[in-house]
């Protein structure tokens, strides 16, 4: 979707402000938004691409006005609702301190504290084992598709309809543009594609510069 999350190339946000000696989290609710999102993810009800898509659906004005962990909290609540794990009524009742019987979720396999270290170390969300032939090889010239899907996509707006060159073939991976929309894994090759800064931004861009973007077979046509 052409959402506010797709920020590459926009103007007007001001300087990059690096905080010195920045803490990992700035408040306790950030710790919780982070940990709840990971722990709920390990329930296995959604994939990482659906998780990103949930955050992207925050209304654009709100997305730009809120912090990163607010995006995460929004995405988590949406996923919990969409997958029937927590209802809107249950959240509203808790916010108002009202007692409400909870809708049970049978058969959930939850992440136990003693499994956290192993789960993080072995977390493998997106590499695919299927043997799928690549459509391109390193040094092939490609052009990205000019598509504007309503759902989740990893082809940024600034790189659509642009010519580039395959520089790395990363093997076979789940395709987020289907997986994130609940349409299956559609495993295929993922490549790093090199675009010159001038191809992306026009003749005023510095001649030697380039942007490398990771894209899948279904984002590309031969140039």
């Amino acid at each position: 979707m052409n959402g506010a999350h797709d920020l590459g190339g926009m103007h007007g946000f001001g300087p990059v402000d690096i905080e010195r000696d920045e803490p990992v989290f700035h408040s306790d609710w950030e710790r919780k938004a982070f940990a709840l999102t990971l722990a709920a993810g390990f329930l296995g009800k959604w994939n990482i691409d659906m998780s990103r898509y949930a955050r992207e659906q925050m209304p654009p004005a709100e997305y730009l006005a809120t912090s990163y962990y607010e995006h995460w909290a929004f995405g988590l609540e949406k996923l919990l609702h969409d997958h029937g794990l927590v209802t809107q009524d249950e959240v509203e009742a808790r916010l108002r301190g009202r007692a409400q019987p909870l809708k049970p979720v049978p058969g959930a396999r939850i992440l136990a504290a003693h499994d956290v270290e192993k789960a993080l170390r072995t977390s493998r969300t997106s590499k695919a084992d299927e043997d799928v032939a690549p459509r391109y090889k390193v040094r092939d010239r490609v052009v990205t598709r000019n598509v504007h899907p309503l759902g989740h996509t990893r082809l940024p707006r600034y790189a659509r309809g642009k010519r580039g060159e395959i520089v790395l073939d990363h093997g076979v991976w789940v395709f987020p543009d289907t997986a994130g929309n609940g349409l299956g894994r559609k495993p295929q090759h993922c490549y790093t594609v090199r675009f010159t800064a001038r191809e992306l931004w026009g003749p005023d861009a510095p001649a030697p510069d380039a942007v490398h973007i990771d894209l899948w077979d279904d984002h590309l046509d031969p140039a």
Partner: protein
Amino acid sequence: MSHEHEHHHHHDDDDDVQEHREHGAPLTDVELRVRALESLLVDKGLVDPAALDALIDTYETKVGPRNGARVVARAWLDPAYKRRLLEDGTAAVAEFGFMGRQSEKLVVVENTPQVHNVVVCTLCSCYPWAVLGLPPVWYKSAPYRARAVIDPRGVLEELGVSVPESREVRVWDSTAEIRYMVLPERPKGTEKLSEEELAALVTRDAMIGVAEVRR
């Protein structure tokens, strides 16, 4: 407190709101919602509170940019390790035990006199957790995500990195599950330093590509 506080006294949500006014500061909407979600998930048996603590502790105290700094220092001192690192970053950092979440495949890109690398994720916040920990706020912010691809030289200049016109600025937009880390140039005058001393010089920002390592 304020007029708003007075108002809440007549409201039937009063007790709950009061309970949440800790340290004198009212909790924001997002804080209340996150608390509500946490208590619901715990009460429903969908998350283990001890697992939440373990997740937080991992990224607050165990996994951070010191991991990446050790990798960089080793690569500066050991040419065979550097070769392995640039050929297969995932395997080379696994030699240190660094692997897992948000680092399913790691590619390490080397800064040279010809190329200066910069890493960004314009669409969200993809970042090599296993070697750098969780990303800083600026990396996830709109200014960086917007500008890093269209005006990387401007961003670098502001952050004190001047790249000569003839040197390529190569931006890596992390749009897949491949994660990127920059191997910065080793500063001059560090020939006698030990691996630990070198690692101490390497900053998070240098491994993202928005700073140089200084003696």
